[in-house]
């Protein structure tokens, strides 16, 4: 009898777990659709602004000493690294995958990496590892560009101090609902796209190259960071959706097993009661 009671209790608790994970799965799925749409829609801008800046690397400037003005600030030895993770767990291996990239990246160059984090998982990781944490930020579930402006402003201000040699960003790139790839992207110096090497260019600049870059580069940083956050958000919701779906499936499977076991136990009880009854009757007749 105790066995029956125990089984009923377990069934109840597993089915309520299944209900919770199912609900989380539905919520994640709804957010995921919006976030995926947003990241896919936002990709062209991010790609285009990057390609414009990478074209600028080929320009034959009349002034030989001219360099992309932002590169002039790259006089230091440190690396500024922006790490983007979710605030919460329950999203499968997403966080640990990003963590792996971050750790392998910061191990090569000890002490030299300064982190700025977006998301609670990232900041607690950096603190736990005892790395250099400059600042931590948070964004909402459906980030808007305004939320990341403070981050990009800090990055620009930091750059101007001249302590750094590069700026990179670690986040997980959204590839599909089931695949998210942790990546490290170098923002500054601006990387040159593979297919665009060696095109000699003579651009006309309006107003002039200096002024143009003074607005173009902050905009580039803003957009790349915002886009990184969008990629991270889409990855987060996708990963959570998938892992909650797995959790729900597992719970349901367990529920089936438990129900079968319960039925068997129940039948056994009935059988043994019947046996008692029959045994009693036989004894009376005899």
């Amino acid at each position: 009898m105790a066995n029956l009671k125990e089984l009923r209790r377990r069934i109840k608790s597993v089915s309520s777990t299944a209900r919770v994970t199912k609900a989380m799965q539905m919520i994640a799925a709804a957010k995921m659709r919006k976030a995926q749409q947003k990241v896919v829609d936002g990709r062209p801008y991010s790609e285009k602004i990057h390609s414009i800046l990478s074209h600028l690397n080929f320009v034959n400037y009349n002034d030989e000493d001219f360099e992309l003005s932002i590169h002039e600030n790259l006089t230091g030895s440190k690396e500024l690294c922006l790490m983007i993770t979710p605030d919460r767990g329950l999203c499968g291996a997403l966080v640990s995958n990003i963590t792996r990239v971050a750790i392998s990246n910061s191990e090569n160059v000890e002490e030299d990496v300064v982190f700025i984090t977006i998301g609670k998982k990232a900041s607690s990781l950096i603190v736990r590892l005892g790395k250099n944490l400059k600042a931590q930020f948070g964004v909402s579930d459906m980030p808007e560009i305004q939320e990341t402006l403070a981050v990009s402003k800090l990055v620009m201000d930091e750059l101007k101090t001249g302590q750094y040699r590069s700026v990179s960003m670690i986040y997980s790139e959204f590839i599909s609902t089931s695949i998210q790839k942790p990546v490290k992207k170098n923002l500054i110096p601006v990387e040159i796209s593979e297919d665009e090497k060696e095109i000699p260019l003579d651009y006309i600049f309006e107003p002039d190259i200096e002024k143009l870059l003074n607005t173009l580069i902050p905009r580039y940083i803003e957009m790349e960071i915002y886009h990184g956050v969008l990629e991270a958000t889409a990855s987060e919701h996708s990963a959570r959706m998938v892992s909650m779906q797995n959790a729900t499936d597992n719970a349901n499977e367990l529920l089936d097993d438990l129900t079968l076991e319960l039925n068997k136990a129940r039948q056994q009880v009935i059988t043994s009661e019947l046996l008692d009854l029959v045994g009693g009757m036989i004894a009376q007749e005899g």
Partner: protein
Amino acid sequence: MKLLDVEIVTAEKTIFSGKASLIQIPGIEGELGILPSHAPIITELNSGEVLIKNKEEVLSLVLSGGFVEVLNDRVTILADAAERTNEIDIEKAKEAIQKAEEIVDSQGSDIDIQKALFVIRASKAKLRVANRRRSSRSINN
């Protein structure tokens, strides 16, 4: 005949992608008319109207700031915000200006004010272009 490949993108989405024989854009130092085989140019943009002509068709859009790159007959416009002129909601734009002005007057945080100023600039450009379109249409009719 050679045509231009035009793409107008904002951070949110691609607003327009297609061919054009002529495109007119509000450069920071004045209106620019771009024809095929134009020299490579990168310029900042003002808020204003973009006209995309392909044969007899003319498409009008309003954009508020951004950048344009012209390279090998590819015109890439990175707009801070863009909208097709015929989709502009005049009432909404007026409302947005009013709200934004209130924010500027209330002297909130720096970022809020920057945002409000952007909204004002963008909405005013919208109204300007929309009104001009309306009046020119009524003349044609």
